[in-house]
């Protein structure tokens, strides 16, 4: 390790900053991002992250298709999104620079591993000249750092291969960025200890690289400013950083415990839902049964079997898998058994863009089955919210004896945010009663209903409640098969009314901002953060705008119609072509305006804010968020378009 003197450097205090690490999939960028996130969280910042994996398992090294990135937004105030633009970008190779530079703000800090900018790498990234040399980067604060060489120097003498040594580069990069944003190394040192304790050479190397990076920041003259982002004023409590699918798994386990049930998950792997299965499989000591089915239809129908058996039964998939479950969901609705169907939405239609995010399965959730086949639909708004939504879905499922569709999306599923850890004892129990052996002589009526129209959940094994259910129309009260026309109408109405009554359990909508005004932004699901932030920004500019976010998308809250009427305009931003908007228009006959984006990516705050301003100025047409339209002929593009895919 070189031992240069530490220089005195400026420290700027900032409200917030956004950093993105990017490099080849093999460069360990997800790890760098995660460590930076955790450290920032430990320092008390509010955080939001956005990992961006390549579609390939392992694309050839150095290619554009193989670039992996991780963005961290950290702040001393409340934040809801990973940030529209990047303040500091770390690019480990030319391909990473080429695909990520567009998001770096003018004047932003650009740290590159200059060692990687040699002929082959430049060529793979489609650069004809070296951007580090040809002046194209002059509007950024460029730091060319010979990371490969510096890392090698730092770990010199350790008994490892060159390749292994080079793998420590991400720790060097981390160290440098840690210094830049005034973060402590301890959490990462602890991580290294935990993770590589059994491989001391590697632990030593990573430690050395990390410290070298940090030290490099301290000493190299070219980098003369350090930034500091103070603690956020978060609600007091114990926090951890949580990923959406993990929060969802925890929420399911919690709901099971709160209702004193075994948890059964029937699932077939599919991106981006698989990690729900994987997470739950690790926690069997919570009385969790995970069944990896042969396909989604089996996953769905096994879930129905588990619900009949009396478990908290859940199935999880993504768009194409949910399409396959449609017929089974119909059976779940007809048998009126409680369960949860999770759809982690991804880019569609068909196989679509499997690793990307979208909100285009709302229609499928509400309408995608044969017959009159309604079910409640709830949507999580952020990674941590998945925890709450899972419990709420189950609460409604058992209160109304109905399958519930729970929507999240790829953005929520993989993103993370600080989560104030609840105390289990403080959580609200979920009451379930199963009928017991009937008093002598009473016949059990499987389709007799309570005031919420819920039928009894009689489970096999209970003497005297033997009964048969199925997919044919049921006679009211008895549950016997019935072909009676009047009964069919009655039952169709009953099932619809039951779902409508779920609205009785939806609390009055919270409105963020004044109760009336010029513009209401109505959102659902994962666009919450961008909408909330955009509305806050416009409120700060004195505009009469408010935000209303839907947690239940079906049924809609009872007060929604009145709320919308109090605003001159209603804007519905969605990552689809206007699915919620269609429903709102149909129900309320309100000429809601859409902001629609179907690009596999979340909204930026600016997109929403710009559209809001346009509407306020009088542009009342629904629009798409203008894609950064790419000249499809440009060389970088041309290469990017080469086949790539996901699961």
């Amino acid at each position: 390790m070189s031992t240069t003197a530490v220089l005195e450097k400026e420290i700027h205090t900032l409200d917030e900053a956004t950093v993105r690490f990017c490099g080849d999939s093999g460069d360990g960028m997800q790890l760098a991002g995660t460590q930076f996130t955790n450290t920032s969280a430990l320092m008390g910042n509010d955080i939001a992250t956005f990992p961006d994996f390549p579609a390939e398992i392992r694309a050839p090294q150095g290619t554009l298709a193989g670039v992996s990135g991780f963005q961290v937004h950290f702040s001393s105030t409340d934040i809801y999104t990973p940030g529209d633009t990047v303040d500091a970008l770390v690019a480990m190779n030319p391909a990473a620079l080429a695909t990520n530079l567009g998001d770096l703000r003018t004047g932003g800090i650009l740290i590159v591993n200059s060692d990687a900018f040699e002929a082959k790498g430049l060529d793979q990234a489609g650069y004809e000249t070296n951007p580090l040399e040809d002046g194209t980067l002059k509007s950024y604060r460029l730091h060319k750092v010979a990371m490969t060489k510096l890392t090698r120097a730092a770990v010199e003498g350790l008994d490892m291969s060159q390749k292994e040594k080079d793998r420590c580069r991400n720790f060097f990069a981390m160290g440098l960025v840690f210094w830049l944003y005034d973060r402590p190394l301890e959490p990462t040192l602890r991580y290294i200890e935990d993770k590589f304790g059994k491989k001391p050479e590697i632990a030593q190397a990573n430690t050395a690289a990390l410290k070298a990076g940090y030290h490099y920041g301290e000493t190299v003259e070219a980098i003369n400013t350090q930034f500091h982002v103070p603690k956020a004023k978060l609600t007091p409590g114990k926090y951890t950083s949580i990923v959406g699918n993990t929060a969802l798994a925890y929420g399911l386990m919690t709901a099971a415990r709160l209702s004193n049930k075994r948890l059964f998950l029937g699932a077939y792997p599919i991106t981006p839902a698989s990690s729900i299965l994987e997470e739950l499989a690790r926690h069997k000591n919570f009385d969790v049964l995970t069944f990896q089915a042969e396909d989604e239809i089996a996953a769905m129908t096994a879930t129905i079997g588990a619900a009949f058996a009396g478990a908290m039964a859940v199935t999880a998939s993504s768009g194409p898998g949910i399409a396959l479950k449609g017929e089974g969901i119909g059976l779940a609705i007809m048998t009126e058994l409680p369960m949860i169907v999770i759809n982690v939405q991804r880019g569609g239609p068909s196989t679509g863009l499997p690793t990307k995010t979208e909100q285009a399965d709302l229609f499928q959730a509400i309408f995608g089955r044969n017959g009159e086949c309604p079910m409640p639909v709830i949507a999580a708004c952020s990674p941590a919210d998945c925890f709450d939504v899972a419990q709420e879905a189950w609460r409604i499922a058992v209160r109304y004896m109905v399958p519930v569709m729970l929507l999240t999306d790829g953005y929520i599923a993989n993103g993370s945010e600080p989560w104030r850890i609840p105390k289990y004892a403080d959580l609200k129990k979920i009451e379930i009663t199963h009928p017991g052996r009937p008093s002598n002589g009473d016949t059990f009526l499987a389709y007799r209903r309570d005031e919420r129209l819920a039928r009894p959940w009689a489970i096999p094994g209970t003497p005297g409640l033997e009964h048969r259910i199925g997919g044919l129309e049921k006679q009211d009260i008895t549950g016997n098969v019935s072909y009676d026309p009047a009964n069919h109408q009655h039952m169709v109405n009953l099932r619809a009314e039951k779902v409508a009554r779920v609205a009785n359990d939806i609390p009055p909508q919270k409105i963020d901002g004044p109760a009336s005004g010029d513009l209401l932004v109505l959102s659902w699901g994962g666009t919450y953060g961008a909408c909330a932030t955009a509305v806050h920004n416009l409120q700060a500019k004195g505009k009469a705008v408010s935000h209303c976010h839907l947690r239940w998308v079906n049924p809609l809250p009872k007060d929604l119609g009145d709320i919308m009427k109090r605003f001159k305009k209603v804007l519905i931003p969605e990552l689809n072509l206007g699915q919620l908007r269609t429903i709102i228009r149909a129900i309320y006959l309100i000429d809601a305006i859409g902001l629609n984006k179907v690009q596999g990516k979340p909204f930026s705050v600016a997109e929403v804010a710009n559209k809001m301003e346009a509407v306020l100025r009088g542009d009342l047409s629904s629009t798409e968020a203008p894609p950064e339209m790419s000249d499809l002929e440009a060389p970088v593009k041309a290469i990017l378009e080469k086949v790539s895919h996901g699961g």
Partner: protein
Amino acid sequence: MSVDLPLPVLKPADFASDQDVRWCPGCGDYAILAQMKKIMPTLGIPREKIVFISGIGCSSRFPYYMNTYGMHSIHGRAPAVATGLKTVRPDLQVWVITGDGDGLSIGGNHLMHAIRRNLDLNIILFNNRIYGLTKGQYSPTSPLGKKTKSTPMGAIDNPLHPLSIAIGCEATFVARAIDTEIKHLGEVLKRAAEHQGVSFVEVYQNCNVFNDGAWAYAKERETKADTTLELVHGKPMIFGKNRDKGIRLNGMNPEVVELGKGISEDDLLFHDEKAAEPSLAYLLSRMRYEDGFPEPIGVFRAVERPRYDVMINDQVEQMTAERGKGDLDKLFASGDTWEVA
């Protein structure tokens, strides 16, 4: 799980539900229902611990007629529904009732996976070689050349042999019975019920409306002794009206031989339902009337293997034993945490 209370003594009629049976008069399904009701009281399992799951088809109406728990699910999916049920509640006795269309056409994959998982399910496939409920299209077991509503010039797909497939996917119990051989049918159902692990039973069932006589050769008094072969564990394979014919192995191939004339019982193939390897069962499953063989009935194979439903619950117990009953508060705080004051 064992039952603690002394069981009330039940009769077959106690297993009849209050629903009118809605099969065509003369349908083979009646006989199977009757035998099922008959063996039920002999199993020592209380009614409330028994569940019948079916798909869609004439055969799949079965659960409605049993006064147990039941679900008439959707077409082809009964094995999957049953898998969810049995996984959560291994203490229940779960029956799957399916047809040749329900089980082998739309539901083939679920059947295959339920079998290979070896859950303790009793799967009874009513094979009438036709789609009954949809009024007479050919099924995956309809013979080549079969003319049906959907194959007016004759079927051109090779029929599937249910037992060959079951054996091809690791079945631990495989058997065959005939709707009209009621005593034997009852015995086979009982054996299936008692087997620990998946039991797969094919029942030759007559659909007298859309495929009458499909199994005539195996059912008619004059022919049946020559066209069927009752398998008995440990016994030589003898058949024929005069019990004068047998099956002998010639290399890998079975052949029909006449007893006497220098061939004694000892030269015959002996049945071994417990053979470690399923090759014998597979070979028996391939013996077909049209190739000049008697078709075996009875238990082809009955071996013990670990059960999925037990193992999945064992994993819960094992992890619980290792780590203790899951503590959510601990789990929530298991990653890096920080305090905000």
